[in-house]
């Protein structure tokens, strides 16, 4: 068993060190000493997301994580990140240009997501982006399929009210600015089409 001490390390060094240690000795159990709080949570989340088993025990001067098992293979091209991927859609049009083309491109983009293996964890719809999730939208079928594949679809409540569409929301749920801001700031990646 390998032991590494990641106490007093600044973020993201604990995760980086653990990642390196796991890669160096595949299959071998790894004991990690960490500070409580964010480092502990980030490392645990990283290991669990990669398919390892994690056992935590609190010590006098920090915590110990026992990481065992083997990693789920990462496909070529997959971006290695810790934490959720959030997609922020701020308009019902994709890009700047003729509105008709922008709407068509956004529709095409949303439906194309269904062909991808790696979906965002959360889809935030803001401003006229909320119109995509309301009655009459041509991507409702696609959004519902994304939802059934685990994408958390959230529409901005203020925006729904502005467009008088709150009671016309079909796909996903209503959210507030606090959740939107928090999602963006805690995301590993924010993708903005």
């Amino acid at each position, binding site marked *: 068993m390998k032991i590494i001490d990641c106490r007093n390390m600044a973020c993201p060094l604990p995760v980086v060190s653990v990642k390196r240690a796991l890669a160096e000795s595949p299959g071998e159990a790894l004991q990690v000493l960490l500070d409580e709080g964010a480092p502990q949570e980030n490392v645990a989340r990283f290991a669990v997301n990669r398919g390892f088993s994690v056992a935590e025990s609190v010590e006098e001067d920090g915590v110990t994580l026992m990481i065992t098992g083997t990693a789920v293979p990462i496909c070529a091209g997959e971006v290695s990140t810790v934490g959720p991927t959030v997609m922020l859609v701020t308009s019902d049009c994709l890009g700047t240009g003729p509105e008709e083309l922008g709407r068509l491109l956004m*529709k095409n983009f949303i439906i194309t997501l269904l062909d991808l293996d790696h979906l965002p964890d959360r889809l935030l719809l803001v401003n006229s982006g909320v119109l995509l999730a309301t009655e009459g939208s041509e991507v409702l079928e696609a959004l519902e*399929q994304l939802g059934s594949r685990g994408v958390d679809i959230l529409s901005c409540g203020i925006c729904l009210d502005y467009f008088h569409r709150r009671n016309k929301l079909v796909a996903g749920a209503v959210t507030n600015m606090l959740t939107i801001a928090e999602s963006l700031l805690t995301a590993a990646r924010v993708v903005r089409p």
Partner: protein
Amino acid sequence: MVSEGDYVAIFNSIHRVMKAERLLKDRRLPMLLIPAPRALSADCGLAIRYAAVDRQAVEEALTGGGLAPEHVYVKKGKEFVKAEISDR
């Protein structure tokens, strides 16, 4: 996005596919502009999907409006089978 028995019309021009969508919307015919399925080649990457029950009305409207699709396919199992365009 394409279920068993659905039809998919391919147009090899973005302007034609957009005109076709507008024409069908004006006629209130149920259809959806979708990304062309990977198995089918479409220069503009777009296609129009419609159900078998609407097939005749959709294809007649397109042909009548001078927007006959380049090709029409029907989804059968995992395959897309080429179909004749209805133009009566």
